[in-house]
């Protein structure tokens, strides 16, 4: 390997390790502040909340989404549900008619204008103190809203709260590994929240104070990642974003690799483009961890993920070339027996040790995330399955997102 490449690899690995250790240190520093509530809690006061459900061809899932909202443990006169059919071409509007008799449900049909226009429409047409949005492929836990509202009541400076998003009933193998990933994300989001570094308030059930939109304006069209842009905008204006790790929202993960690829491409592309749009607030002490660590860490992973795969492929291809050369000179070697075991040949490569440590730290944080999401510390073989699969497939959407960002190609929603 060329020297400069080796230094580059070490540099990127150092930064990746730095980020993981930062999260781990944050966890041990603030773990007492993390609460896991079980059962029902009562609030002293129930503020008004309006939840927008933007739908675009969601006939299959929207009914379940609506039922989950109606089942929220929250006074009905304080909670308004606004379902907006954003010009669907399927039977979404027909399905929504089942809910027209509920007093706190509003149904709206409009011309297709994109997700953000639908949510904005709902925000503009309500006067609730808190506004939220729930993607029509996601379902809320009955206790989620109350638990989120406690965060606002405890700290008047908190302007938005993201929930803990989990994968709903994973079926395909791709969904099962996303389940592991989402549990890990619960940990990462919580750590980011504790140090003020959240850079996305996800579409499934992030709750905002109305003040956010009156002060900073409504959702904007932003590279199909409106929920990221609003978080960047809030960070720019020092608006506090928190995460409520015991408010669960279940979302449907993409079923196939292709669908997952499209979703991630959109996310990473959105991340790159939003960062470029908000480059002015990067690496400035004034904007705290968000600007010093959270967003830079995203970029480190964008570089590290393809680099790691490249490195592994390089090694494997070298081995194959060597093996082919051997077979071509002396033919197949059928003596498959394990050669005399000799501890001498156990690798003593420093980079291998560093890499293994990094993987162990990641595994540990996934297990902690699992505890936050499910209440159990347990190692699951699916963690390894997730790490291997994602290491292999993530580089493809990351590279494509970089390509699209460089050549200004826009991404699609689905």
């Amino acid at each position, binding site marked *: 390997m060329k020297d400069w490449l080796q230094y580059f690899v070490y540099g990127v690995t*150092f930064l990746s*390790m*730095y980020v993981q*250790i*930062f999260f781990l*240190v*944050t966890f041990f*520093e603030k773990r007492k502040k993390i609460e896991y509530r079980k059962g029902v809690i009562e609030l002293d006061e129930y503020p008004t909340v309006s939840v927008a459900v933007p739908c675009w061809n969601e006939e299959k899932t929207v009914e379940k989404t609506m039922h989950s909202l109606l089942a929220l443990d929250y006074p009905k006169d304080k909670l308004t549900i606004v379902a907006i059919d954003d010009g669907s071409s399927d039977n979404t509007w027909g399905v929504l008619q089942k809910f027209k008799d509920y007093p706190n449900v509003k149904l709206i049909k409009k011309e297709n204008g994109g997700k953000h226009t639908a949510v904005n429409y709902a925000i503009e047409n309500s006067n609730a103190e808190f506004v939220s949005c729930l993607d029509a492929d996601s379902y809320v836990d009955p206790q989620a809203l109350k638990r989120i509202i406690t965060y606002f009541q405890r700290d008047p400076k908190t302007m938005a709260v993201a929930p803990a998003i989990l994968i709903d009933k994973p079926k395909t193998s791709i969904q099962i590994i996303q389940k592991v990933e989402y549990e890990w994300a619960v940990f990462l989001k919580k750590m980011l929240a504790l140090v003020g570094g959240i850079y996305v308030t996800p579409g499934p059930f992030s709750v905002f104070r109305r003040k956010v939109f009156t002060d900073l304006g409504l959702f904007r069209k932003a590279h199909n990642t409106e929920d990221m842009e609003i978080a960047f905008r809030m960070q720019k204006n020092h608006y506090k974003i928190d995460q409520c790790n015991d408010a669960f929202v279940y979302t449907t993960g993409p079923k196939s690799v292709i669908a997952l690829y499209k979703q991630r491409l959109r996310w990473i592309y959105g991340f790159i483009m939003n960062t470029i749009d908000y480059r002015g607030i990067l690496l400035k002490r*004034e904007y*705290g*961890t968000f600007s*010093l*660590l959270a967003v830079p860490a995203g970029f480190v992973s964008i570089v590290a993920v393809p680099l790691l795969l490249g490195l592994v492929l390089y090694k494997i291809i070298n081995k194959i070339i*060597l093996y082919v*050369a*051997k077979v071509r*000179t*002396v033919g197949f*070697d059928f*003596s498959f027996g394990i050669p005399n075991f000799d501890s*001498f*040949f156990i*690798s*003593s*490569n*420093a*980079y291998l*040790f*560093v890499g293994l*440590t990094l993987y162990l730290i990641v595994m540990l944080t996934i297990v902690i995330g699992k505890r936050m999401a499910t209440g159990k510390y347990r190692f699951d073989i699916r963690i390894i399955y997730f790490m291997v699969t994602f290491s292999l497939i993530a580089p493809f959407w990351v590279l494509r997102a970089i390509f699209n960002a460089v050549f200004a190609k826009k991404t699609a929603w689905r």
Partner: protein
Amino acid sequence: MRYLQKRPLGGRVYFMNTEEKNDWKKYLIVFFITLFVFVTAFYVSGKMNDKKLEEIRSIEDTISIDILSLETQFDLFEELSCDSITDSILSKELNELASKIEYGEKNFDSLDDELFGLKKYYSLLQIKDFLLMQKASERCKLNIESIIYFYGREECKDCQKQGFVLTDLRQDYPELRVYSLDYYLDLSAIEALKSIYKVDENLPALIINGKTYKGFKSREEIEKIIPELIKIKEKREADAKLEEGKKQDIGSKEE
């Protein structure tokens, strides 16, 4: 409070809460933990490599003692009892050493001086072994087949292939002694060998029974050059069968 007001940053005064004030400390602590992980990894790796070099050195010392003792036996007795020579055959350890040195060259971060020294030592031991075996085969009328193999680490295209062939041969014929020498290793004994056998940069080069062969030689070609190899193998297999038969005889007698 006064302290904060005295510290304008870019013309503006930042009133930070305690959490933010401690931030830089955390960044620093995390940096040192990360550094510690890296340093530990390098330290452990270095220690392990040292141990491996130590292992190579100790094998070399064993071989060196073997060679020296055999040489001394030759010097002491004009007519050495030829039986004892077979006992002191060294090739197994030399082969082991060869693979370990090759591994070291491929895997140790920088070609450190120590490995370089060990490689020179190894080359000398090989040449010594070669000379000693020549002497032994003359005196005791032994059939010891050997190949001296000159390779280049980078400049040689066919050396990798030649290496595969020789490793393969050695697996099939453990009696074959292969001495591999780095053509570019700065060692006077190697220079001497090069001039005796007229080896030039046309690598790989093989010296078999005093004759120099230049360029890649396939397995079949080598087997043609040393027809004795097949005979030796046949004899070994016949011996092994005999041995088996004897064992079975003893077994049946005991019953």
